[in-house]
């Protein structure tokens, strides 16, 4: 199951960053990038056959780069940066959930919500099912996929 989520999250994440804000993956994560502090975090909750949330943590100037590329403005406000990051989270969530097949009765995605950094740093959101790093040409995105309770469609052993 975890592999399916990882694949869906990576595909949706890369597509969203490439097509929406022209940010492209860089394969190698340098040592300095591993230590980048978190600058913003946004979550999008989903409800359907299963419920949970997707969290994006922006590091290394990513929220600025997203807003600049999305808005074609060199000096986006903090609000615009959070809105732009929220849109990316919304798009990723809207592509991951259908890819996992958890929509037999439809699903709902809530509006993006800015998360105080201390909530993320103190691990108040719990443990994600999947966590991955997307290293981009302008910053780094940490994507986390949470499922409330359990996952109802276990992987078949074929």
């Amino acid at each position, binding site marked *: 199951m975890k592999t399916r989520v990882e694949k869906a999250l990576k595909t949706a994440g890369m597509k969203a960053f490439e097509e929406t804000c022209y940010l492209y993956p860089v394969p190698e994560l340098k040592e300095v990038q591993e230590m980048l502090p978190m600058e913003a975090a946004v979550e999008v909750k989903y409800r359907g056959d299963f419920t949970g949330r997707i969290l994006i943590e922006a590091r290394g100037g990513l929220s600025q780069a997203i807003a600049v590329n999305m808005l*074609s403005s060199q000096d986006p406000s903090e609000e615009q940066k959070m809105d732009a990051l929220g*849109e990316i989270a919304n798009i990723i969530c809207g592509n991951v*959930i259908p890819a996992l097949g958890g929509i037999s009765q439809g*699903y709902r995605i809530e509006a993006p919500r800015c998360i105080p950094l201390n909530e993320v740093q103190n691990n108040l959101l719990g443990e994600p099912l999947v966590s991955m790093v997307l290293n981009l040409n302008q910053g780094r995105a940490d994507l986390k996929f949470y499922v409330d309770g359990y996952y109802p469609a276990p992987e078949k052993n074929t």
Partner: protein
Amino acid sequence: MALNTLVVDDSSVMRSIIIKTLRLAGLSLGDVLEAGNGQEGLKLLEDNWVDLALVDIHMPVMDGEEMINRLRKNKEYHDLPVIIVSSESDSARIEMLQKKGATFMHKPFTPETLREAIIEATGVSHEDQG
């Protein structure tokens, strides 16, 4: 022919992305109007001539589905080409909106995808002559 276009989305960032992508799509654009929900969009249509509407589904005050319902009952705009731009993936809901004459475009999208959706919705290529 330049396309007068109405972009309806409660996110100003998303409206900016759609407008930016519209400009990259190589189509001849006329006036581009913006509204934050369906009600504001309908109000703009009362005072402006629009050839195409790009509409989000989930919005406060009046959502995209209700806006399309009201458009289809409007004498002047009952056949306005509408493209739904959304993260929605519920196939039953998408099918229902398509039955109301809307073209569906899933986020994220490229200028090429948008261009194809506009040609499908309007039936005209609206090539940029400039």
